[in-house]
């Protein structure tokens, strides 16, 4: 990369093995749909290329051929129109337009009629995090962790040679098997988000108060990025994750592994709490290493701190307050902040919250 000199990559936010620094390598066609769309894409590109060549070719030729002589003007043609020519150049584009419309329409309609045996997946967007649930596999909930280390941390980690998978609790946002259709049902808890997986050529807005659906069938195993494509506020750019495509046999095993959030043997409660914290994406809105407020108050030294609330009263951030703030976040808003935090009720159980509180105690 020639221009890489100007700025080394800072935030390798997803960093999966499928993705390299090659700018052209981001877009394999990894679903049945993607292959069909790519064919049409190539067709349109060829069509546009030929048209462009025709228009610009004629233009450049005329520019050269009919250049004004150095002295005076050449005698120009009095031609004003040509009915037959104009009809032809209206009719030919019109025909191609009909072809394009029909072709695109077929692909589009297919994307909306899922086969009956599709796996159901429910996707819920919220600022700035995706929650993915598998109704067919009770309890299986994934989320896009937006816990990206800060630039400073990354530098330290890289310097220490520790930059790797185990630093962040990095889990896929979506796990799907190859060869099995997957049906997405999307909605949102706050504003409009858009669930976008480029390698599947898939995008669908998640609209609050409404449901939208979509389906796809993955064909290629690997890990691919996943974005929010509809502007949704401050951390829109961090609302990304990755989709992991595994073989149909491996699917259930992988899903179980990925959705697990349990204290490991010999892991301290606080360390487990840090993993919970990362999984919850809390870092998106709360600073932990300095006192600066982001969308929410800084959590540095939160435990035992006195906070003034919007209603004027003060409260000490004890276990109960932290617990309430996780389960019913907007009950008591610290003065100067707006009620923006989603509830984690149902996602975190008591063990998780206990661990989280232990972790927060360590943030001094």
């Amino acid at each position, binding site marked *: 990369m020639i221009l890489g000199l100007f700025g080394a990559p800072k935030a390798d936010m997803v960093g999966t093995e499928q993705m390299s620094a090659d700018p052209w390598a981001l877009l394999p066609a990894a679903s049945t749909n993607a292959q069909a769309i790519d064919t049409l894409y190539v067709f349109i590109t060829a069509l546009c290329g030929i048209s462009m060549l025709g228009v610009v070719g004629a233009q450049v030729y005329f520019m050269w051929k009919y250049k004004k002589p150095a002295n005076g003007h050449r005698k120009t043609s009095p031609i004003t129109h040509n009915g037959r020519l104009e009809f032809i150049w209206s009719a030919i584009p019109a025909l191609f337009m009909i072809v394009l419309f029909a072709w695109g329409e077929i692909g589009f309609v297919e994307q909306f009629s899922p086969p009956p045996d599709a796996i159901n997946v*429910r996707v*819920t967007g*919220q600022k700035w995090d995706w929650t993915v*649930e598998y*109704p067919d596999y009770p309890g299986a909930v994934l989320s896009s962790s937006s816990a990206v280390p800060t630039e400073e941390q990354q530098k330290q980690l890289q310097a220490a040679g520790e930059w790797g998978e185990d630093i962040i609790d990095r889990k896929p946002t979506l796990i799907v098997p190859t060869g099995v259709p997957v049906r997405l*049902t999307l*909605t*949102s*808890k*706050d504003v409009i988000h858009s669930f976008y997986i480029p390698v599947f050529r898939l995008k669908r807005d998640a609209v*609050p*108060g*409404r*449901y*939208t*659906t979509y389906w796809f069938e993955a064909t290629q195993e690997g890990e691919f990025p996943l974005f929010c494509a509809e502007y949704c506020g401050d951390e829109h750019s961090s609302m990304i994750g990755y989709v992991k495509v595994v073989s149909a046999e491996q699917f259930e095993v992988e899903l179980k592994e990925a959705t697990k959030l349990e204290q490991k043997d010999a892991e301290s409660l606080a360390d487990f709490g840090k993993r919970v914290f990362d999984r919850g994406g809390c870092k998106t809105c709360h600073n932990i290493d300095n006192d600066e407020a982001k969308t929410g108050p800084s959590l540095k030294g939160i435990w035992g701190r006195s906070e003034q609330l919007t*209603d004027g009263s003060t409260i000490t951030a004890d276990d*109960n307050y932290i*617990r*309430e703030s996780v*389960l*019913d976040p*907007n*009950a*008591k808003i610290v003065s100067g902040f707006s*009620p*923006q*935090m*989603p*509830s984690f*009720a*149902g996602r975190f159980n008591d063990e998780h919250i206990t661990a989280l509180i232990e972790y927060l105690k360590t943030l001094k």
Partner: protein
Amino acid sequence: MGSQVYVNGKEIENPHEFHHHVAPKKQYVQVLGALLVLTVLTVAVSYADLGPLSLPVAMLVAAVKASLVCAFFMHLKDDDRFNVFVFVGTLLFVAIFFSFTLFDLGARNAVNDEQKTFEYWNDEAAAGNALKVGVDHVPEKAAALKAAHAGGHGDGHGGDHGDAKAEGHGDAKAEGHGDAKAEGHGDAKAEGHGDAPAGEHEAKAPANHEAPGGH
């Protein structure tokens, strides 16, 4: 020159004749009469139960009234044809705006039906988890109003957040319309006020955003 007028590139022979039409007084009186009669008809029709027809009938009567006003009071009948074109053309664009948007909403029914979007809302409403109404979105104001209406009943429940905590998100939702319903009946007031702490929480997400099968 003074006498030569060009409109739309054509010379007009007698510019003072241009758009000058005095209608007889009688005509205006008749039109007013017709309009008043039609108004009585509209009101009368609203008392007759026409079921699904009531909207089209009401709109039809209104359209007739509107045409009378346009044609006679606004002189469209005798006006420059281009002004008529402007008016009718405008209605055409209104029609485009209406038809496409309503068409889309109608066609979205498939997903709404399948996902039971509106049924789900109704179920939630029946369970007391409906969308919050009006001042309930402004917790301070709702609390003040509740206090004003509940008199001294509220003290026992005032600052107790314990139950809100225990029930988590669900309780924040419960302050919806079902709650307001309770307010409506005198004897239920105290009970309604029992939820007052929850009333102070502004849940960011409306209740119905939870996927029905998700939790």
